[in-house]
């Protein structure tokens, strides 16, 4: 019995010692290489000090010294409650020792702990793994349907009223003997919406060439102007009317947002176009343009991927292509199987997202933790 008590007491002592050791081992200050960064940054964290509650607490001081250096240098001073600091001046591969001190007006600084870390840049941003999976999946689905379409598969595309109206709108201008105005947004040529607008311009120009209807294309961006001039020239050549192409029909206006609006509004009021197209990226000027066009009595077809501008176009225009409908214009107007295939791919990717939304909703109904875990899978870092 005595032996058993002795063994039990020894075990308790050992357990207490281990617990104390573990408590002692728990680092008060942790320095680590900042994750998913370009390099040169170390992140230092520490638990809030009990001194924070005492009167005279001034804050924390973060200090650093490189390997082999004697003196710690202060690299940051933080207020109470702030327990994370990023050292963005660290040299990659150099081990640094970080020390955090609590500053009080009553006594000398209290060292909370010391930790060592090396900064380094990463070759893969793990916070974007889900984005990579999403892009690979979507690309695979789109390419699969492009090949299917190439193989001759019949693909159905729903009716898009705004695109069906394009030909009628051009016909109306021809009958009235008035020009057509095409505005391709206020973004540069690197914007997807601008590229979609250029594609639609090509189709519109082909028709205006066939019907010999004047076309006016005022441009906000000089590069867009150069590309659009070539697009319109090519369309007239393909329509067999290269001589009908007016070099001055596509022109640069200005890169001042409201200066551009004033110029285009002036063109609308002077030339009274029968049809106005607004395709591409638009900002605060969307309603000014569309309302002026409505005042002149023109048929207006707009298309943008800027969600905030959609209500204005829906209000003032006869037809509006919403978001992806703008991108679908090439496939819809050209009926090229390759483009139709990519549309189908988009639809299936959308179906996958809808499935994920349904699964997420069911998980959330079953358990909040499960739902939040599922939602976390789709979180991605923007920077």
């Amino acid at each position, binding site marked *: 019995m005595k032996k058993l008590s002795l063994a039990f007491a020894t075990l308790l002592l050992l357990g207490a010692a281990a617990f104390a050791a573990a408590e002692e081992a728990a680092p008060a200050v942790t320095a680590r290489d900042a994750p998913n960064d370009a390099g040169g940054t170390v992140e230092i964290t520490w638990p809030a000090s009990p001194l924070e509650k005492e009167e005279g607490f001034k804050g924390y001081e973060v200090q650093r010294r490189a390997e082999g250096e004697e003196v710690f240098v202060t690299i940051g001073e933080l207020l109470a409650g702030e327990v994370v600091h990023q050292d963005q001046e660290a040299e990659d591969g150099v081990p640094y020792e970080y020390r955090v001190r609590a500053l009080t007006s009553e006594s000398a600084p209290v060292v909370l702990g010391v930790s060592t870390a090396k900064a380094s840049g990463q070759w*893969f941003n793990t916070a974007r793994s889900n984005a990579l999976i999403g892009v690979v999946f979507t690309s695979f689905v789109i390419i699969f349907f492009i090949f299917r379409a190439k193989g001759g598969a019949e693909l159905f595309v729903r009716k898009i009223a705004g695109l069906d109206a394009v030909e009628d709108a051009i016909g109306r201008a021809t009958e009235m003997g008035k020009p057509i105005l095409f505005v391709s947004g206020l973004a540069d040529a690197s914007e997807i919406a601008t590229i979609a607008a250029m594609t639609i311009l090509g189709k519109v120009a082909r028709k205006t060439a066939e019907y010999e209807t004047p076309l006016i294309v005022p441009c906000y961006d000089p590069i867009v102007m150069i590309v659009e001039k070539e697009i319109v020239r*090519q369309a007239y050549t393909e329509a067999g009317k290269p001589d009908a192409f007016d070099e001055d029909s596509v022109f640069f206006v200005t890169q001042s947002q409201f200066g551009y609006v004033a110029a285009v509004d002036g063109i609308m009021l*002077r030339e009274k176009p029968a049809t106005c197209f607004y395709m591409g990226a638009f900002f605060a000027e969307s309603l000014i343009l569309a309302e002026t066009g409505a005042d002149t009595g023109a048929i207006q077809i707009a298309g943008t991927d800027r969600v905030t501008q959609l209500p204005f176009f829906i209000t003032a225009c006869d037809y509006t292509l919403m978001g992806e409908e703008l991108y679908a214009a090439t496939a819809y107007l050209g009926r090229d199987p390759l483009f139709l295939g990519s549309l189908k791919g988009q639809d299936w990717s959308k179906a996958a997202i809808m499935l994920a939304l349904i699964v997420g909703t069911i998980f959330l109904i079953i358990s909040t933790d499960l739902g939040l875990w599922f939602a976390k899978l789709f979180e991605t870092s923007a920077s």
Partner: protein
Amino acid sequence: MRRELPLAICFIMGIIMTVQFFIPHRHSQWLFDNMLKWLIIVLTFAMILGIGNLVKLHIQKVQRRRRDWLYSIVALFGISASLITGFGWGIEADSPFMVLYNYIQIPMQATMFSLLAFYIASAAFRTFRARTLEATLLLVAAVIVMLGRVPLESIVGRWLPDLAEWILDYPNMAAKRGIMIGIGLGAISTALKIILGIERSWLGGGD
């Protein structure tokens, strides 16, 4: 070659920049920063082309006495005045260029922007005429959201701002996100078509 070379450059750069998005390392960042610098250089040269086109167009208009050619003289005068004052006296705070910018261009831009208020009123009037079920729903939702933004809490209570917030946070946000998901997928699809050389409109039309 006129088409193959740009297509090859587009394909290679498209792949490189896609991969770059997933690499945070400083070498990858260096590449991205330099690409942006190249873009600025290209845009600067393009601006010269743009101004050249603008000047040519207006000179032709004046020479041929086309309709409203007097406006072209104003445009040419504006361009010349900006260039002469900018290159002659610099762009410091009190320079003639900044005087032109601050006292002519900015007020004119502000005038155009302020027109938006009147256009919003006229567009709202047209849209909110309750002729159909959809227009009526839109009218009701708009009135609630507009009144919900006005500090009427002490008179009508908390329910109005709460209802306005609910309309913005749920039905409105759901519709917005639906459109944005479509835009995201459409952007991936268009980018893919451009990288693979299926979409070639950016080359200036034709196949």
